[in-house]
């Protein structure tokens, strides 16, 4: 397969204003294309008195832009058979358009409008504010999101960019006005520090030319300064218990600060997490909690390595009467991955599974596009996913153990148990 047609090769170039433009071929036999603009506009950039501003801005850029109000924008996308989605992460915000490959130019024009010329109409602001209020309440009322929220607050000190989920509070979101949105958009939807990633059968030069034509006239070219990162602190070993009566299931969560994506331990930590709970069906948590003991429907772990730092979590959802059996398994498996070398048979199986999964990731344009966004955002080599199998095969059991010690440091981790103290059906 030529590089130009290989969805696992992501070529990028940087414009003089700092905007990075990347192009990836779509998977063979697909008829769609996708494009994403990523901006340094994540919730970590929220001013302390305006937490929620990044999410609101990100939502609102897709609520009418350029000559289109929100309904016209929705209808135009429907006519094209396209979708437009916005996501806000701690470090970045992204807007993604997907649709038929033959209308890429129109889709890029819409994406550029959304990025450069949002309307921020008052009625849309009020609608998104109402939706954010409801999301805040949901974070507090659902055991899973409540546990995660409490864990972030326990692990990351005040002022840390990963401490908040970004939804804010009723007070902070109530304060946000149109001027805040306009300022945040001007300062964060920039050229420098941002990326445009396009998955399309069109050639790299054609994509670059199209992006250059559409994405110009940024109000501000320079990117915002990176937030300061206060050091993470030692966390109490006592589990945080949040009683949430009336629910059926308890969420048990162990988690803490971890390594950034460019850390030398990343490949080892990736495999350590796969062995612990990341690899579907094969992982130790799934095998012990669900398959051996039948204690929970879900038991897993994840490692989220970002640019500035990271986060790892091991979790399980179970009935309140089973907490005492599930929690020790989570704790002991965490300790085991940190203190013992993984056996070669187990490692081979997990590793080959992770490697074999790569073709499944590029079955669809959307799946392939996600990989291209990852390569571009983290500045990985153009052929990162082509070489990823060899990288994983070179990691030794000793390196995995050492990486787990660093990336899953239990001294800066905590345990949160959120949910009912007794089953609601127990009293019936």
């Amino acid at each position, binding site marked *: 397969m030529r590089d130009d047609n290989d969805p696992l090769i992501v070529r990028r170039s940087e414009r003089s204003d700092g905007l990075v433009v990347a192009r990836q071929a779509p*998977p*063979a*036999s*697909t*008829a*769609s294309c996708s494009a994403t603009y990523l901006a340094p506009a994540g919730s970590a950039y929220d001013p302390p008195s305006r937490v929620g501003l990044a999410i609101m801005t990100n939502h609102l850029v897709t609520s009418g832009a350029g000559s289109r109000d929100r*309904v016209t924008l*929705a209808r135009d996308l*429907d006519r*094209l*058979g396209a*979708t437009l*989605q916005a996501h806000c992460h701690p470090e970045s915000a992204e807007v993604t358009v997907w649709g*038929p490959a033959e209308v890429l130019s129109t889709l890029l024009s819409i994406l550029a409008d959304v990025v450069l010329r949002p309307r921020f109409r008052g*009625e849309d602001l009020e*609608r998104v504010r*109402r*939706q954010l*209020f*409801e999301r*805040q309440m*949901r974070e*507090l*009322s659902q*055991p*899973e999101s409540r546990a995660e929220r409490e864990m972030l607050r326990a692990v990351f000190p005040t002022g840390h960019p990963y401490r908040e989920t970004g939804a804010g509070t009723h*007070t902070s979101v109530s304060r946000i006005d149109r001027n805040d949105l306009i300022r945040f958009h001007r300062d964060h939807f920039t050229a420098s520090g941002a990326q445009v990633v396009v998955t399309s059968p069109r050639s790299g030069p054609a994509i670059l030319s199209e992006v250059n034509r559409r994405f110009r006239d940024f109000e501000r070219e320079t990117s915002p300064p990176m937030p300061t990162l206060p050091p993470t602190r030692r966390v109490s070993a006592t589990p945080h218990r949040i009683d*949430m*009566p*009336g*629910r*059926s*299931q308890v969420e048990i969560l162990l988690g803490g600060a971890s390594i950034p994506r460019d850390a030398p331990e990343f490949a080892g930590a990736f495999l350590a997490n796969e062995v612990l709970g990341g690899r*579907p*069906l*094969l992982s130790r948590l799934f*095998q012990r909690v*669900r*398959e051996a*003991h*039948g*204690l929970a*429907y*879900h038991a897993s772990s994840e490692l989220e390595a970002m640019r500035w730092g990271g986060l790892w979590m091991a979790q399980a*959802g*179970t*009935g309140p009467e*089973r907490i005492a059996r599930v929690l020790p398994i989570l704790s002991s498996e965490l300790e085991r991955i940190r203190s013992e070398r993984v056996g070669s048979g187990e490692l081979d*199986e997990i590793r080959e*599974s*992770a*490697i*074999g*999964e790569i073709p*499944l990731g*590029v*079955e*669809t*344009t959307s799946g392939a596009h996600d990989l291209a966004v990852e390569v571009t955002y983290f500045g990985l080599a153009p052929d990162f996913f082509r070489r990823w199998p060899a990288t994983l095969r070179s990691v030794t059991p000793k390196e995995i153990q050492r990486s787990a010690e660093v990336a899953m440091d239990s001294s800066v981790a905590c345990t949160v148990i959120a949910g009912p103290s007794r*089953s609601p059906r127990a009293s019936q």
Partner: protein
Amino acid sequence: MAKPVRARRPRVERFRLRNGLSVVLAPIAKSSTVSVWVWYRVGSKNERPGITGASHWVEHMLFQGSPHYRKGEIDRAVVKVGGSLNAFTDYDFTAYFSTVPRDHLSVPLDIESDRMTRALLEPAEIERERTVIRSEQEGNENWPEFRVAEELGELAFRRHPYRWDPLGFPEDLVALTPRDLREYYRRFYGTRNAVLVVSGGFEPSQVRRQIRALFGRLPTLGEVPDVAVVEPEPTGERRATLSGPGTTPYLEVGYRAPAVQDPGAPAAILLDVVLGGETRLFTVGRGWGPSGEHPSARIYRALVDRGLAVRATTQYRPRQYPGVFLIGAQAARGVSLDQIEEVIHRETGRISRFAPARSEVLEARRKVRRGAQLAYEGASGIGFRLGYFSMLGGERFESDLLSRVLSVSPEAVRAAAERLFPAERRVVVGYEPSREAPNAG
């Protein structure tokens, strides 16, 4: 009738083995993956009170061992070659799927042929799985939307098995025995009742040989189940209000809706697009998940744009037997369920009396057409679509249904609304969140 619409779909070959197994092959020369799906025409519709949840439980047990694959080996065999696998149980059917790199197609084919009629269903494993399934249900019960859906099903259906969720009643999950599950499996699983779909990168003649060798030797088993119970026409509105932990009040209104083969289904599908904005059957993926925002759709404009709700949509997913057309909304803070319900009744009344503008219907039809054109993407997605439509109808069912949807007129949409939305056909379930101690935030 409008001219037939061709979605961008792969060339498909269909044949049937002597033991009754239907096979659908969709080769995609350039695909580096291959997906194997087995669809059984058995779902919660085939259960009865006392054994509700049996279809879903059997689905779990088919991962727990068969003659050649002991417990854990099915997962391991697929995942270790980089594949992914899963299964799901619906009201009308149960589906199992594995997607693997194309060189490993023989792995899922071997697994599916092994467990089609010979799953072990060992009592100890059934017992262990009981807690897992209960845990799955508990996770769902944390969500008000799940509780509302459960209640709405129980109100909408008095006799028909669509009354319960495929997870089953909690009391049945306690009482079901290994014997119940084995009988259920033996009765419904087999070649006569299944459709095998293979999609993605493979060489058709070779796969035909493999399928004949692996599946052709299986006995002719599997009852083709029809549901004899007929739900009587509703004769009056039914309603309930639940309470529990939550955010803001939530409301679902359900209306008795036509079965997928009913001549009224195409107009109801387009009515769903006009009111709620989703194209469901004609979209990439399963179209079953939570709706995105559709600012051009009527219900959204009436509720979300006017500040009464934070989200609002409709859902008509046609089933084998008459099901439910849903309208749901999460109230904005300070807005009551009564206010939401009033607007829903006003909108359903309006479209029942006045046909939508031709331009509005053309927009909806165009959206469906575009969705259908892009819906076939990726080996897994293609396998899903071919199997799913096989469960709903025959070989040309999808294209026939699409053509019929694309010929629905504005007056047909109005007439569909008039048939669907009378007050005596509706079920209203509200969820009022209980007061909880405020959090300092």
